[in-house]
């Protein structure tokens, strides 16, 4: 049996607020195999970030069980089985770009020379080599996001959790980084859970696309893309690709279309 990177059974999350409980997520059944690339897609507020936070053990699940590589989420966090990029960059303002990228390496005791080399490599990857000595407040929004991506990749984790990592990037940079991400995931055999609002991006990158729906946040459909492993420019032009994109769009807009038109 293939090891499961993520195994969520009946997972739900409720936030208590002063006007009563908010059900952010309910009855989530989701498995992500090791090395598998899964995208989460769904309207704003449907619980994508919440699900990612549960997997990362940043919040405890209210119901259900959640296992990461066969162990409880909290254990996986302690074992550093994943790397995460948040929806906001979340850079430490008093550290330079290099310092921010190096943070996890530093915390986990990588020696200084090795660290410097790795940081240089990562800065190159996200196209910020010239900016390593800058502070976050001197960067553009997209640059900050790229620093956060580099930081998440720093330790080559077995599981990557990415919350709209390419949201603030232009098309070129985005496509380039999409390519790099799939390459890195393939090379390191990492599983990826990827939140995005871009249907083409989800289809292009993923083995499976998880479509979610809000109020309460839940999974409505899970689509296999069935595309083979080579993700290149040619794929973006292929008919299967368009077909999948349309399929996801339909799955996604089933209900929301009506909702939007109601107004």
């Amino acid at each position, binding site marked *: 049996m293939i090891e499961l990177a993520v195994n969520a059974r009946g997972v739900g999350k409720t936030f208590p607020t002063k006007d009563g409980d908010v059900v952010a997520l309910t009855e989530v059944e989701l498995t992500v195999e090791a090395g598998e690339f899964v995208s989460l897609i769904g309207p704003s507020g449907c619980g994508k970030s919440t699900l990612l936070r549960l997997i990362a053990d*940043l*919040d405890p699940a209210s119901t259900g069980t959640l296992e990461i590589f066969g162990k409880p989420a909290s254990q996986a966090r302690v074992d550093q089985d994943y790397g995460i990029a948040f929806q906001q960059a979340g850079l430490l303002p008093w550290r330079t770009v290099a310092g921010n990228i190096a943070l996890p390496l530093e915390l986990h005791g990588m020696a200084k020379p090795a660290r410097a080399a790795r940081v240089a490599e990562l800065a190159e990857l996200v196209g910020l080599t010239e900016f390593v000595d800058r502070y976050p407040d001197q960067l553009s929004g997209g640059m900050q996001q790229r620093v956060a991506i580099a930081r998440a990749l720093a330790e080559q984790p077995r599981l990557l959790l990415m919350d709209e990592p390419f949201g603030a990037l232009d098309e070129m940079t985005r496509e380039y980084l999409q390519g790099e991400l799939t390459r890195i995931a393939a090379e390191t055999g990492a599983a990826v859970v990827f939140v995005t609002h871009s249907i083409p991006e989800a289809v292009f990158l993923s083995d499976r696309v998880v479509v979610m729906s809000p109020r309460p946040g839940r999974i409505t459909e899970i689509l296999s893309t069935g595309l083979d492993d080579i993700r290149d420019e040619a794929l973006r032009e292929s008919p299967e690709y368009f077909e999948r994109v349309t399929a996801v769009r339909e799955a996604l807009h089933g209900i929301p279309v009506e909702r939007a038109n109601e107004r």
Partner: protein
Amino acid sequence: MTTTSNAVRTPPVWVRVVAPITVGVVILVIWIVAVDVVKAAPRALPSPIAITNEFVLRSGIIVEDMGITASNALIGLVAGAIVAIVLAALAATSRPVDGMLAPLVAAIAVVPIVALTPILNTMFGASSQFGRQSVAAIAAFVPVFVNVLRGLRQTRPVHRDVLRSSAATGLQTFRVLTLPTALPYLMSGLRIASSIAVIAALVAEYFGGPADGIGTAIATYAKSGRASLAFAYVAGGIAIGLVFFLVTSLLEWLVSRRKPV
């Protein structure tokens, strides 16, 4: 305030009341053991039991003196805090004001009460409480000013931009953004200031002014061998400090704000 999984795990609320009381009791027990049982403490440190007896016996005059010192401290605290907030606001908005105030505030912060009180008493007359109130005000001014000024500079760039792009006036920005951001700092400052105001009002009594208030009594009785009576007055001072602390804590709780996301 929201609690995240990252927050230190919060014990139930009743602990909030029980914990300080427990600590107080522990301190008391150690004290009693040291003084009454082991008899290891210096003579000037009386037993809490003796202090309590004196307090009960003399509660009439002690409470009267507490009233005087507490009102001096309160007047000083309020006046000092208001002046501090206003000046800090000016300093935060205008670099010249900031520059001009900086050395003066630094100087005020370090004038010892010993030096200050006689000067103020000579300037404003030694027969009123004014000198003591001003000493308390000056003492309270410093931590509030320093903290508020720092706090006023902690607004986030993006929030400053929001207000600027709304052409908010200086006063509006202050009310809507700067003050809320600075509130936790103000609270730190007030919390420090409240106890410093009490001690300043109390210590100022040694160096002139009407022969009333807790400080005068502490000095008088500490120097005449009535350590337990002196400490009964000290307990009175502590009671004032506790009340001030509780009030500032309440204030802090009332204005506690959300952390930026």
